[in-house]
């Protein structure tokens, strides 16, 4: 929902980032206000996941220029866990498996880390169990998944649901969902989209990285951006996604090559 008077949550200016000396992000500008839903689309390798990881603070990526202001704070000055506790959430394109650590314990530790960062007391185990079981319903995830090791042996779709469960629990201000729709069957896509819609409010914002227009039928974006060569080359409304679906990226990237 676009509201011109809403406060700016994220402001990225002229961001350049490299990995192992190769520049991937080249002068990226991006702004998100409270209440908005943004979609970022673009060819494979154009830098979408890189952007999401830079936001989350992955140590492999070096920011060489530009700035990221998150709710008035210099995000680049924060450690990854501080960013998370400040309200940034990244749903990974490839969620990791943590053998030997139960999903329930992992979620509780993360939840308590957030509380601690806000100066609140840790939640007790029983209250947490109630909470996490209630949140599991948002993504219709069976509670038996709570007692398995984090993502271990989960199917692709189950891992994605687990990411959204984490989002539902941590209630971030800015959620970046990197291809959360890939690998979901149609029913799961509806469930996950329903969850994302349910969690989206006038005070938070969501960035969806996706290749497919289909997701955008369920979670309707206010803006659609096209990423190419490490920056955004076009921004439009939700109809841009439909146009990309029918025309592909050639007409845009060709233009970019000229520029």
């Amino acid at each position, binding site marked *: 929902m676009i509201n011109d008077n809403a406060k700016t949550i994220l402001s990225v200016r002229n961001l350049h980032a490299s990995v192992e000396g190769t520049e991937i992000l080249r002068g990226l500008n991006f702004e998100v206000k409270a209440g908005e839903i943004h979609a970022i689309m673009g060819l494979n390798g154009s830098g979408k996941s890189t952007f999401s990881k830079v936001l989350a603070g992955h140590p492999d990526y070096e920011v060489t220029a530009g700035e990221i202001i998150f709710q008035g704070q210099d995000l680049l000055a924060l450690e990854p*866990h501080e960013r998370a506790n400040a309200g940034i959430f990244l749903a*990974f394109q490839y969620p990791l498996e*943590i053998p030997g650590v139960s999903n329930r314990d992992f979620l509780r530790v993360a939840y308590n880390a957030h509380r601690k960062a806000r100066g609140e007391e840790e939640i007790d185990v029983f209250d947490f169990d109630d909470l996490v079981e209630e949140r599991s319903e948002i993504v219709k995830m069976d509670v038996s998944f709570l007692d398995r090791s984090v993502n271990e042996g989960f199917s692709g779709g189950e891992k994605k649901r687990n990411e959204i469960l984490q989002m539902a629990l941590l209630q971030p201000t800015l959620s970046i969902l990197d291809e959360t729709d890939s690998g979901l069957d149609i029913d799961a896509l509806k469930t996950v989209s329903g969850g994302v819609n349910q969690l989206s409010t006038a005070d938070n914002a969501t960035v969806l990285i996706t290749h497919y227009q289909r997701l955008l039928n369920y979670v309707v974006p206010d803006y659609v951006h096209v990423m190419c060569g490490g920056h955004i080359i076009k921004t439009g409304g939700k109809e841009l996604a439909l146009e990309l679906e029918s025309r592909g990226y050639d007409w845009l990237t060709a233009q970019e090559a000229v520029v």
Partner: protein
Amino acid sequence: MTKSISTTNVSASAVNRATYLKHLLTQASAAADESTLPLKALRDQAIATVSDHTFPSGRDEEWRFTDLSDMLSLPFQRAAKGTDAHQLAFSAVQSDYQLASLNGHYRSSDSKTLKQAGVVVAPLSELLQSPDYTQKLEAIVSSRLAQLQGAEEVFTALNTAGFTDVMVVWLAADQVIEEPVCVVRESEGEAIAHLRTLVIAERHAKLTLVESFSGTGEATRCNTSVTEIWLAEGAQVNHVRLQDESAETFHIAKTAVDQAANSRYQCTAIDLGAKLSRHHLEVYQSGPQTDTHMYGLSALGDRQLADTHSLLTLIHPHSSATQIQKNIVDDKAHAVFNGKVFVAQTAQLTDAAQLNRNLMLSNKARIDTKPELDIVADNVKCAHGATVSQLQPDEVFYLQSRGISAEQAQRLLLYGFAMEIVEKISIESLRQSLSDRLTEWAQ
């Protein structure tokens, strides 16, 4: 020039080692004389065996990575009984079957031996005085004590020559005890003690055995331990072994197992303590269709060394075996794993898998891993693998991205690595106490 110097050194240390072993044997014999067990023939034979050995050096293939030379300057005396005031540290498992000893001496005050027909849980020293010690039982014990293969190994024989007492666990056919049988070994003071346990599960008997080794104080000490476990046809033994000895302890141990047809043996060995620890786990087969599970975890820091030497010998068909050994090494710690699996021509249709995973937390730590598979049979399924890794930065980042600090993420990952083994333990209270202990360790 260099050569002659090294030759002189070698011979000097050889003399040293010979004298040292003689010293240990003298102490062992003296300890045996003090105990009242009528086992003269057994002891004499063991003394003769030890006399044929020298104290191991790095030149012995079996001791290549585990250097015992620090012991040579430690003239251990046989252990005295220990103080009456000693408070039992072990509390992770509550059971009606508990045999406690301090420095190898049985402590009835800390033990519980529920009387039950067909079940014997008692030290041999008391059993000898008891009307329960029938001729039949005596025959069973004497045909099993120190009769398992591998008895000629130097520390096993030294233990036989010098053990103070034998903790005996015997279950008659079809006896099943749900509560774990705890053999609690505690130590204090500077000394050497030889700890011995004999477990016999007759046909279709079933038990869980928990052995715990721990010590108090800073004193330098040495414990040798030998546990012999006999599983008759269809018997099941679930064995948990916790080694949490005090920091200056040399812990040299063996678990030797004989599995008859259709029996199931599981060992979960956790090594957290000691300055140097060695565990020989040897499983022999006396019938087909056995099922063997060997799980191990060593979590080490400072300059600790833990060495797991396992031997699985399969000579009968249709058996299955799984082994997972995990090691975590921090600081200048050193973990050694040598896992021998022998599958004879006669052991067709064996299904065996061995995995050794190592986590290095410091670049000064050291891992030596040596899987040795000797498979003669042709129709078998055998897999093995060994990995050495560090904490995965992407896993740490994943946790950090959920608000968990890097240090806490590392602790959680360590805990996860270790818990895969701890979870094999079926006793809830013990899993909990170990998980607390590991959380503390990871700090």
